[in-house]
């Protein structure tokens, strides 16, 4: 039940005043906030772990791996690179503009709004916050109400460790989001589903606010026939992680479905079953190593996916669920109907359809026929297949022989394309996402080319022609009257 809230004018006014004062632009302020994030995670780790367990049933090691370790790594990376990122870069000027110099100066955008999702409430809040702070902005964070304990911990810890006049948290549901979006921000960074993404972008359009939309999609994993038993073992572990291991499959870069050859399918199913048991035991719910489904609504949604005709009959493993605990066990389906909801909507849960094809290369066409996902995965040692997948599919990213791990690489841009979103972040891309690179040109009065100005005549035209071509030799000749045409 959402309380009726105010319009946030007061908060926004304060943020704008603080930004205008220049405080957030100081390198020292940015550093202190990034250090503050590190302290927050060091000192309040147990509160964070408790909240993630409460809202999502995440095992504390999974929580550390996916949200705590990653954020601390990113904050440290930002601290180490801040000076470099903040410095201006020289740009080359053509000789024709001599004497001149040019540079690119990064500057903060101003007051930014970050809307994060419920599946990785800490990671998806702090990764953008790190970028926004490093770039010198003031921030308002709106975490998801679907992970309320986490949202509350976010509000409290940010209040305790970061500069409240410049970084604020606003908790609440869609009504709060709507009210916030009625205001003008200098940037909106949104992680979530496409439907709300559209609402966000439409609201931003009223103010010409630039947006980054980190959406999802059906991330396919092409699993080729693998001969070596060592490779098979590693691949299975990584596939299982990629599907079930990150928030129980409720992740934008989780493997959504698998594509494999017909001949390999039964081996694959067998191996997946074996390694599911190895990772989670015979009773996965008891292992407490798989996150639960976030709420009843999503639980029902997932159950309904399984209940469709042509889908239910394709279940080859798992399928059991526990409504009280909001738990669904790892479930494998073999060739459900292609036009069923489970094959047309983003699953966002621990249900793994395997689609079989005559040849593994057909997977490329299969993927291309569908909206561009956030990630494409390929488990194969076949270099040609890799090349084909890279050049003939389009996605935010493509990863071979592993899954999810691209999220932790500071040097890889993280973002979607087409239906999976636009804009990107992580590492320096986070800094750039929240910055404006101002082009600065400095000229002098020493040299002034008369042919830039009217009154016009043919000689000036010829001089301009050679000038714009950087054909300085001809330019000189024309000037000296030794040549008449450029």
């Amino acid at each position, binding site marked *: 039940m959402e309380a009726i809230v105010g319009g946030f004018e007061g908060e926004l006014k304060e943020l704008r005043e603080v930004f205008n004062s220049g405080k957030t632009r100081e390198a020292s302020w940015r550093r202190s906030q990034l250090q503050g994030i590190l302290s927050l995670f060091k000192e309040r780790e147990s509160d964070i772990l408790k909240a993630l367990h409460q809202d999502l049933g995440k095992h504390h090691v999974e929580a550390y791996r996916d949200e705590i370790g990653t954020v601390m790594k990113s904050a440290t990376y930002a601290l180490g690179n801040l000076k470099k990122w903040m410095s201006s870069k020289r740009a080359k000027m053509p000789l024709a503009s001599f004497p001149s110099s040019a540079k690119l100066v990064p500057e903060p955008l101003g007051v930014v709004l970050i809307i994060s999702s419920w599946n990785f409430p800490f990671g998806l809040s702090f990764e953008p916050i790190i970028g926004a702070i490093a770039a010198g902005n003031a921030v308002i964070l709106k975490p998801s109400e679907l992970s309320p304990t986490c949202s509350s911990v976010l509000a409290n810890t940010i209040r305790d460790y970061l500069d409240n006049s410049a970084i604020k948290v606003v908790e609440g549901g869609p009504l709060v989001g709507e009210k916030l979006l009625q205001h003008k921000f200098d940037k909106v960074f949104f992680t979530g589903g496409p439907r709300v993404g*559209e609402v966000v972008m439409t609201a931003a359009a009223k103010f010409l606010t630039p947006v980054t939309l980190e959406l999802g999609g059906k991330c396919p994993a092409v699993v080729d026939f693998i001969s070596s038993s060592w490779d098979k073992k590693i691949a299975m*572990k990584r596939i299982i992680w990629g599907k079930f*291991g990150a928030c129980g499959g409720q992740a934008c870069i989780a493997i959504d479905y698998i594509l494999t050859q017909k001949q390999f399918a039964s081996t694959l199913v067998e191996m997946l079953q074996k390694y599911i048991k190895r990772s989670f035991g015979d009773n996965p719910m008891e292992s407490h190593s798989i996150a639960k489904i976030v709420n009843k609504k999503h639980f029902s949604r997932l159950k309904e996916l399984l209940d469709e005709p042509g889908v239910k009959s394709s279940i080859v493993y798992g399928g059991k669920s526990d409504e009280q605990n909001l738990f669904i066990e790892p479930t494998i389906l073999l060739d459900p109907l292609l036009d069923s909801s489970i094959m047309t909507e983003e699953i966002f849960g621990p249900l793994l359809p395997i689609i079989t094809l005559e040849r593994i290369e057909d997977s490329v066409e299969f993927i291309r026929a569908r909206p561009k996902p956030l990630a494409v995965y390929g488990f194969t040692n076949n270099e040609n297949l890799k090349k084909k997948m*890279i050049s003939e599919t389009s996605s935010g990213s493509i990863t071979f022989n592993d899954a999810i791990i691209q999220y932790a690489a500071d040097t890889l841009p993280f973002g979607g394309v087409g239906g999976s979103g636009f804009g990107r972040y992580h590492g320096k891309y986070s800094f750039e996402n929240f910055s404006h690179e101002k*082009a600065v*040109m400095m000229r002098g009065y020493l040299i002034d080319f008369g042919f830039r100005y009217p009154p*016009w005549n043919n000689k000036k035209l010829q001089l301009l022609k050679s000038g714009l071509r950087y054909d300085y030799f001809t330019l000189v000749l024309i000037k000296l009257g030794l040549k008449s045409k450029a």
Partner: protein
Amino acid sequence: MNADQEMRRSVEELRLTFKTGKTRTVGWRKAQLRAILRLIHENENTLFHLLQSELGKHPVESYRDEIGVVKKSVDHALNCIDQWMSPKKGRLPLVYFPASRQVLPEPLGVVLIIASWNFPIALTLDPLIGAISAGNTVVLKPSELSPNCASFLANILPSYLDPKAVKVIEGGREVSNQLLQYKWDKIFFTGSTKVGKIVMAAAANNLTPVTLELGGKCPAIFDFLPNSDLKVAAKRVASGKWGPCAGQAGIGIDYMLVEQKFASTVIEQLKKTIKRFYGDDAKNFKNLSKIINKGHFDRLRSFLEDSAVANCIVYGGSFDDTSLIIEPTILLDPPLDAEIMNEEIFGPLLPIITMDNIEESIEFINSKPKPLAIYAFTKNENFKKRILAETSSGSVTFNDTVIQFLCDELPFGGVGQSGIGRYHGKYSFDTFSHEKAVLERSFYFELEPWHPPWNNFKLQFLRLVYNYDYVGMLLLLLGLKRPSNS
């Protein structure tokens, strides 16, 4: 088949062409770029005539601002495209070993370029160069306010460029609105802030990324300068106000800020410069473009309907209804709440606002939306620093005007109300590309601790991993470091 169906069919054809992969080959892209070069070269005189008749542009101005710019842009793209298209390899932290990472640019797909009327050739072809270099198929929608240029492009482009990959669609607002309903992989828009909002709102329906090149009131700060520099500065100001399409330019100077005691000197010098450049025969101004149509002509005249504004005219002020030419006009200190000081002028009227101290100009500029460009004529290094640090704009140019437009290495775009995104040079290529992150891992080496079943050892290991503490990891693996109980 009605107009909508026909347009949809054209767009469908572009999508099919893109799917064939033809536009991705470097051979195709270079062939198209060379064709643009030939088009300009073989039709130069026709273009001069068109721009002169439609906009009153003198051939030298047309060359300087449009034809020469496009030529330079294509040459630059042809020189650099191999480099732009190549994947960028990079480093990953050691924990990922063995792995390789690259960032690979790929085309977005089918893109829509909507151009404005003031530089009808440059604003269609320059973005087109970017879209083609990046490997996309394109719909060009030139402005109906420069219909002859639009027709010319519609007729001539199919004989130079691949008609299955680049199409020109002519028409007015209805056509634009229709086009905006379709699903594009990118929309590139040059025009007014008002229409920019409409474009972005329409793009939101399909979650289409946009680049908006808008305008704004670009100020010129004019500090005290010694006489010799003053003369050159005045030429550059005149060139930046009345030079590009008689002030109808996004980066044209909109208004000027000058110190009270210096104002008359500056005005005198400007008057001399105007007379030299354009003559003072009210019936026959030379080298000056006309206003695009009656609507805009009347709009500009209405700025002066307020007598409080009209009384501030210190030079010029004559309007010729037949030729649609407005004399270069200077106004001294019009009321700050008048329309002319709050809307983008986009015409040859130059308000000069005086202040006691030139440093007040910073606050003045900050009280208005962020412009596309800020110009500052000053030799005071401290003042320059303040301008850079305390104002925000697409770009800043010291001691010159408009010239930043010519530099291939500088990004060209706005911030805040002056726009989203940027182009020119490599930035054009980037704006029409998606940079896909490619991560290749191998099966050789596996860091066990990533996956469940969970235990303390794995948690400890993960802590060390995120700290890139390789020594610690090694010690832990060798059993020389005990996992702490956390």
